[in-house]
């Protein structure tokens, strides 16, 4: 192996290597900074959300907002919920935080509000109250930490039973007004080999949907006390709710717990599933996936025997970051958020209800639910997901998922015992 040969090949390789390095350098020097994390233009507020598919809705609302407060919205979506929460927490103390943040109400809001990363927007609620946009003390309480409000309601959803109108017609059943009528629909569908109710949750938060519905339906006051840490999961109403749930499983009321809500439009269209208890915020997704407005109905589930009518409510939060680049402007936008023109643009996109009862989107199913809530003055309860300290909820939801896999009475007893043990531990941790 001669030196001369080597050096020749070397220089060729060196040439190759250096041209490669040059190309890499060129590629890197053309690298860009993100358009969104650059300081936003003067009339734009940045908004973090966990739902990129809402971006165009935020832009619609932003156009209305710019007439009122002078600022448009630049939404930035993070697709995964746990990643989203983590990015909000991590960015809160840095320069990369957004002006506005989408969050959850109840204890999830308190959890971050008491860490001081959100701005006080009590003034926005006062203004909404003065103008009659939103006078809802129960809702306001769920946006409150230490007597001050830390966000305005992004939307207000009800948990209702969605159903397929053509399938109900084919089964010869009508919207149930009593628990017995509801059971009759379940049995009729089951006898025809149609899944009466799609209920997922084997590995997700959705396992809490039927739990909250049944506990709240059986005893509304107990549900409020239970989620406030004043009653036990082993008390009678809670055990009774688990019994009813277990009994529904025995009747064949539910799908396998690994069904996904994104399968629902196809299942409804093909007549394979009759009903699904879900938040009205999902209406838009159902319609976009091909369900016809005329074929989709919704009703409030009648209370089980011994209970009273009440409804579970979910409300997203629009909060102002304490470290916002344009905090004044963000606060002004929060004040303008509940203006009816903004709400109409926003709920028109979302096809869900607003915290302003006068703004209702033009969707049959949602209108039916709202009409029922307003006519019967149904008492409202905060969704389980936000109704207690987050760590307690996350653990209990996992217990409920495990119950859905094995919905027997003995498993029910184990489940409530485990939930209560966690409640004792986590309430102590929350208050410390």
């Amino acid at each position, binding site marked *: 192996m001669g030196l001369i040969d080597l050096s020749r090949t070397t220089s060729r390789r060196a040439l190759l290597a250096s041209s490669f390095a040059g190309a890499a350098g060129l590629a890197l020097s053309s690298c860009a900074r993100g358009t969104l994390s650059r300081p936003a233009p003067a009339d734009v507020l940045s908004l973090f959300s966990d739902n990129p598919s809402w971006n165009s809705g935020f832009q619609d609302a932003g156009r209305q907002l710019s007439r009122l407060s002078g600022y448009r919205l630049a939404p930035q979506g993070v697709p995964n919920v*746990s990643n989203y929460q983590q990015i909000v927490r991590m960015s809160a103390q840095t320069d990369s935080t957004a002006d506005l943040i989408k969050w959850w109400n109840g204890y999830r809001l308190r959890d971050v509000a008491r860490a001081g*990363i959100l701005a006080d927007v009590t003034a926005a609620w006062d203004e909404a109250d003065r103008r009659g946009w939103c006078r809802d003390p129960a809702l306001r309480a769920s946006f409150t930490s230490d007597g001050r409000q830390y966000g305005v309601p992004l939307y207000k959803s009800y948990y209702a039973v969605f159903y397929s109108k053509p399938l109900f017609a084919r089964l010869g059943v009508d919207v149930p007004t009593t628990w017995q009528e509801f059971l009759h629909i379940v049995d009729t569908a089951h006898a025809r080999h149609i899944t009466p109710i799609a209920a997922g949750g084997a*590995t997700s938060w959705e396992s809490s949907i039927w739990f909250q519905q049944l506990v709240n339906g059986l005893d509304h006051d107990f549900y409020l006390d239970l989620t406030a840490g004043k009653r036990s999961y082993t008390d009678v109403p809670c055990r009774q709710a688990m019994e009813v749930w277990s009994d529904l499983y025995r009747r064949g009321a539910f799908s396998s*717990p690994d069904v996904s809500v994104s399968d629902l439009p196809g299942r409804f269209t093909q007549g394979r599933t009759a009903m699904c208890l879900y938040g009205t915020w999902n209406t838009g997704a159902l319609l976009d996936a091909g369900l016809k407005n005329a074929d989709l109905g919704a009703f409030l589930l009648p209370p089980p025997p011994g209970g009273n009518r009440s409804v579970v409510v979910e409300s997203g939060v629009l909060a102002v970051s304490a470290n916002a680049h344009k905090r004044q402007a963000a606060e002004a936008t929060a004040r303008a958020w509940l203006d009816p023109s903004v709400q109409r643009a926003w709920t028109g996109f979302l096809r869900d209800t607003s915290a302003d009862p006068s703004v209702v989107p033009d969707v049959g199913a949602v209108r039916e639910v709202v009409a029922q809530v307003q006519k019967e003055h149904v008492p409202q309860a905060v969704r389980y997901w936000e109704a207690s300290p987050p760590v307690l909820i996350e653990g209990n939801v996992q217990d409920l998922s495990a119950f859905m896999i094995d919905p027997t009475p003995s498993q029910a007893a184990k489940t409530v015992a485990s939930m209560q043990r966690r409640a004792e531990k986590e309430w102590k941790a929350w208050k410390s």
Partner: protein
Amino acid sequence: MEVLTTGTKAVVTRTANRRSEGPVRAPRQGGVRRAVWVGAFLAPAVALVAALLVVPFAVTAYRSLFDDNGITARFVGLANYRSLLTDPDFGRSLLNTVMWVVGTLVLPVLLGLLLAVLTHSVRWGAVARTAVVIPYALSGSATALLWTYLLKSDGAVNQTLSAVGLGGWQQDWLLHWPLNTVVMIVATTWQSTGAALLLFLIGLQTIPAETIEAARIDGAQGLQMFLKVIVPQLRPMTVVVVGMSIVNSLKTFDIVWLLTQGGPGTASETLALTMYRQTFTLNRYGYGAAVSVVLTAVVVAASWLYLRRQVQPQRGGAA
């Protein structure tokens, strides 16, 4: 450039002088010069790993001594590690992790080795290799969606079973432990065998044709050739495949997160999922950090046990 040339000349002279004294094992250069050379070759890799991986890990390790919710922190010493020991979920996730290590050592590694050798001797082996390698190129989200199709209660597997009259074999594949961990290991096998296969193929290239020929003349054939000649000759690549398999299976996260989120309950959680749930779902950054320190200790211990004889290179024939 001038300096370099002079240096080269010096090396030439010196090595020329020593030529009579037997094989040269290392260039005789000045200590400083040598250090500069070595430094220039090693620095980029070491610096990158240190700055972007080791330092962030050290930050996390330090965090494990705090009660930290991601926003505010309070020093608690070793309390996080103490509560780890009494956590029943931790035992389960340790057990699952062990299942993953054993499962991915048996399935993808062994299958990869067998397929690498087998597809050589079959004329249409390229077709089989492509079939096995394609899944490795698919993204995690596509894989997860696919296996959900296959494994959910009304999914393809159960449909097929009832179609061929084996309805009694239908299972809720992802809903019960330990079945869910086992089927997820199978899903991983489907995806990652291609990687092992390719690495073994590269290893096969390094086996000199003369070695094979000599063995054949000695009468080695089939299985005997495989065990006595090919497997030992593949050792350097086997170390890579097995080493990575141990490390990756201990860190198993993606497929479980996408298919079951560690559930139902915490039934299918691995250590990496426990860490992720504690840190990012429950916002117990300190506790999650403690899990990650334990996990890292396990991975380091396992790979050190496996690699310790490999780390000192047995240097070719000259050594």
